[in-house]
């Protein structure tokens, strides 16, 4: 949020719309940019539609809420009003994955990537740590068009030792740890910190899918990454169906010779019916460091 606020001082077209969430987080922005802030109320369909309309008048609108509320609750508004029109709306979900684990299934955002990534024109921003989150936020403030920003909660571990800058637009898979061998762990989202010690001990390269889209440049980048090593383990805090691992496999449709190099670790649906901390639920969903390690070999 601090990065968003800083960028909003530079780019005069950012607009923040919240769905009555963000207490203690958005007030500074609201105070500084009262004309570019709006609490729409607990009405996400309207929030997405209003955001599309505001975008059509020239604003770069960020809609902000938690878990599934800014995404699944208003999925058709995102599909039709935002993506189909190429409206410059960035949908921000905080607490994606199992970050709100103890709040129960209503707050487990584990199907969001599957729902959103197929909309033509949407950019997926799934940063792995706070440094990446700041970098993609800067980028999203400076670019037009629809995007989904999938964030954890506050307090995630910084895996990158220093600030990072986007190297390419439209897709960005930053290296968090260089490897010494022929294997790679490719993380989508905040599982980057979970995979980091495994990557270090196994000498695997650790990469993050910080920015991607279902488009030709991203598909080419994934082909290139998979082609460069003997083993890629894709890790995500999302159900298997339709997630990032599923996307990686789709990218390899035309290259059957590369398909056996990829292992995918996503959540087992057992995580859905349980309540507990993020760590507990990851265990229930078989999303563990041990499993990542086993898949590397």
């Amino acid at each position: 949020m601090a990065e968003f606020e800083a960028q909003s001082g530079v780019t005069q077209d950012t607009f923040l719309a919240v769905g009555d969430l963000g207490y203690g987080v958005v007030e500074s922005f609201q105070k500084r940019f009262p004309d570019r802030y709006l609490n729409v109320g607990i009405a996400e369909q309207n929030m997405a539609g209003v955001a599309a309309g505001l975008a059509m008048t020239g604003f770069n609108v960020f809609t902000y809420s938690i878990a599934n509320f800014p995404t699944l609750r208003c999925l058709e508004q995102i599909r039709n009003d935002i993506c189909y029109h190429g409206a410059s709306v960035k949908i921000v979900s905080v607490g994606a994955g199992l970050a709100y684990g103890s709040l129960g299934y209503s707050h487990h955002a584990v199907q969001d990537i599957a729902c959103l990534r197929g909309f033509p024109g949407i950019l997926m921003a799934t940063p792995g740590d706070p440094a990446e989150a700041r970098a993609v936020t800067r980028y999203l403030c400076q670019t037009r068009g629809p995007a989904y920003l999938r964030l954890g909660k506050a307090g995630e571990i910084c895996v990158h030792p220093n600030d990072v800058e986007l190297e390419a637009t439209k897709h960005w898979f930053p290296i968090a740890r260089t490897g010494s061998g022929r294997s790679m762990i490719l993380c989508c989202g905040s599982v980057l910190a979970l995979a980091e010690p495994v990557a270090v001990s196994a000498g695997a390269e650790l990469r993050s899918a910080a920015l991607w889209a279902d488009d030709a440049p991203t598909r080419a980048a994934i082909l290139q990454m998979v082609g460069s090593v003997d083993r890629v383990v894709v890790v995500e805090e999302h159900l298997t169906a339709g997630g990032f691992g599923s996307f990686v496999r789709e990218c390899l449709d035309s290259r059957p010779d590369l398909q056996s190099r990829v292992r995918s670790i996503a959540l087992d649906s057992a995580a859905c019916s349980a309540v507990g901390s993020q760590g507990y639920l990851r265990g229930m969903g078989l999303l563990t460091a041990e499993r990542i390690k086993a898949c590397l070999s």
Partner: protein
Amino acid sequence: MSSARIESLREVAAEIRIRTLDMVTLAKASHVAGALSMADILAVLYGVGGRLLVRDGEPAWPNRDRFLLSKGHACTALYAALSLRGFVAREQLERYAQDGQPLMSHASHKVPGIELSTGSLGHALPVACGLALGARIKAEAWRTVVILSDGELDEGSNWEAAMFAAHHRLGRLVAIVDNNRMQAMGPVESVLSLGSLPDKFRSFGWDVVDLDGHDLHALYGALDLDSRAATGRPLVIVANTIKGKGVDFMENDIVWHYRNPSTEQRDVAVAQLRAGRVS
């Protein structure tokens, strides 16, 4: 308003209906009755000397009033109205709903003059709220007008937006409900009663005008957009209409939500319209 202007708008309405009938007949398309019910409203908006501020042949003119058709299935009447203002070529209408053509069977923003693609109901009023709010923040003077169907008010998103518009005092927003009292499977009253629409909107904090949606004089008076901003309240016009208006065998018959007219039926319908049956 002068009677000459009323007569001129009456001719526009008849022409919208005739072009609509031609499109659905040629394309064997449905939804003709819901297009006919709002033709008079479109005439008052888009007719020369009408209430919507647009420039002929300049669909992207920055100061234009924004018009959104929430009941996107009735797009034929809108395409017809746009063709009368030079946004859509007349011959394009003949290719309505054909392979690879821009005029699809629900309103499409790929067509010059159409702001928002619709087809799924309950989408346009929230977007209209965003447009109206954006215009106000940017101190731009254009207005935002939406036509909704009564049936689509089943969708809760409309009521989220209705609350929002009143709360944020979107005085330059006008919603027109094409209140033809029929929806896809039967009368609105039997599917899901709306109760009193004027009372509902009034209780949401809107200004309300309840009128005969085929009375051009009343529509022209109610759509005096220049006077709106000062009130600070959004306006809803509950336009009481007849589904299939202007063609006697289509009026109030649910089958014309779906059926396309034969060439013979088209000829009868056009003859009725040409004879000035619309009053």
